[in-house]
């Protein structure tokens, strides 16, 4: 966490943001003695670009957002659902108004409906071995075009650099200012910095509250076997 805090301090100093922001962990930043959710996934560049494509008029007439995410076993699938529900709302710029979920141990599948009758499907499983990088895909389908964070005709994301030597390596570096951090770490620092810069503490808390409600509704759907309306 020290490394991330150092980078955050660097950005705060460089851009003259006179706010004391302390990363409690990768999910929370403390500003004005308030614990604020950073929702760092929103600051991954791929989701920023997907949001811009969807909300900037590149796609016309959105119909469906499809999400699949496979994570390490023994991790919380509802935490993953929280993340993906947030990404659906963030990318689409719409609220989710209903959700139906089926769960089998460490896997779950959900259909959520958003405003304008847009349908989101979310498939989550915690089945990867410890240390394996999450596999995911986010795709938005519209009357005029499809946007996706995985290249056409591929199942997995690509990396920027592949090294084939005695030891095979791969690298994906996406941020010059924060060079050396992973994509996820960069997102944490960027998200905390964005909150400190914008000062939108109440907005972030409201988003968190909505997401907690959605996850509770998801659990209720599993329990009742019925669609839950938000």
């Amino acid at each position, binding site marked *: 966490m020290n490394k991330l805090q150092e980078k955050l301090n660097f950005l705060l100093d460089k851009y003259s943001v006179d706010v004391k922001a302390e990363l409690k962990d990768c999910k929370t930043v403390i500003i004005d003695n308030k614990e604020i959710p950073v929702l760092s996934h929103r600051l991954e560049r791929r989701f920023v670009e997907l949001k811009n494509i969807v909300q900037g008029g590149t796609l016309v007439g959105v119909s469906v957002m499809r999400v699949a995410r496979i994570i390490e076993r023994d991790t919380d699938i509802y935490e993953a659902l929280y993340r993906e529900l947030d990404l659906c709302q963030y990318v689409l710029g719409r609220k989710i108004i209903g959700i139906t979920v*089926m769960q089998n141990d460490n896997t779950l599948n959900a259909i959520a409906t958003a405003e304008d009758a847009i*349908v989101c499907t979310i498939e989550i499983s915690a089945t990867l071995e410890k240390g394996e990088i999450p596999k995911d895909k986010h795709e938005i389908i519209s009357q005029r075009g499809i946007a996706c964070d995985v290249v*056409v005709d591929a199942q997995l994301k690509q990396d920027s650099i592949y090294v084939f030597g005695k030891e095979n390596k791969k690298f994906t570096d996406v941020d010059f200012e924060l060079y050396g951090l992973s994509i996820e770490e960069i997102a944490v620092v960027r998200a905390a910095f964005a909150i400190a810069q914008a000062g939108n503490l109440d907005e972030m808390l409201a988003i968190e509250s909505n997401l907690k409600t959605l996850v509770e509704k998801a659990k209720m759907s599993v329990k009742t076997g019925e669609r839950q309306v938000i």
Partner: protein
Amino acid sequence: MKPLKIAMMSMTHGHTRKYYQTLKDNPKLDWVAVSTANDEVKEIFLNSVDGIPCYNSELEMLDAHPEIEAVVLASENSEHLRQMKLCAERGIHILSMKIPTFDMDEYEEMIDIVDKNDLVCQVELEMHYNPVIVRMKELLANNEIGKIKSFNATNITLSPVWAFPWQGVPEKSYGKRVHVKEGDPRFRGGALCDHPHIFDMIRHMTGSDFDCIYAEVAPNIRPDIIEEDMLSVIGRMKDGTIFSLDPSWSKMEERLKVPGPGWEVFPKRMEVNITLNGEKGTVMADCFGPNVYHNGCPNDRYTVQYTYFDEWIGLIDEFVDNIRNKKQPLINLKWHKRTIEAMNAVYESIATGKVVKL
């Protein structure tokens, strides 16, 4: 083994052209004749295949060729029962398209006809003859990922309604005109009716049957067609396996009258991807990949050129074997009935907004 004397009827189904090469090349077959449903498909056929007698009516063909032993019913769904009766009267074996009918009374009648006349009726679900599927089944049999916990699959394509207009007519694809839900102007008969494969495959891979289904229909990406083109399905099998199925027409197409180069607007015209999450890990599979790519003629668009599409070879081999050796097809009418019931449950869930128990 004596070659099987085979014919085709109607020639209106989207899979019609898949049979041309196999029926000509397979030494176990003697392709006797075809009958076409209208002048348009007759012209397409005559432009595609040489040397096979082509008749304007089924009866004319059957009367002219009493030697016909089997027929591929390459027709719209609404014609299947009538054509099955026609074949059964003559003791002709049947290769049915993937949706025999959605009407379960009609379905029972089909089973009865086939049983009473001691016919082979194989349902065309060609994914079983796809090598990626064979490998997946092998991985499961070898217990690579343990028991399946979730089965997530896409069976997504462009919409065939411009080339095969009956698929855009609810009475011909679904059997009747039923709104997808109250207040929705769209009718049943669209993308779901085109994509039974993943509903079938989950039954094979889990060895279980459907317990409950929930589905939502999304806004059409083709607002000018009157059937659903985008839908999402989740549910649970009786063994506890959960699933997520996407049977949409989610790949946009040029509105060609005859499928061919330049059909794609989205680079990839079709995808069947399956992810199996198990007790010990995950298997992700693309049943039609990897491929080659170009951005050449006719539209200079980046396009996926498929490198494997030979499912019909294995399918026809099995069909001949079933007839000659009096075997029950892997996909027979009785087996397939529960798949069709599940697809009907999808429509029921969309209409009611409820989880449907099977």
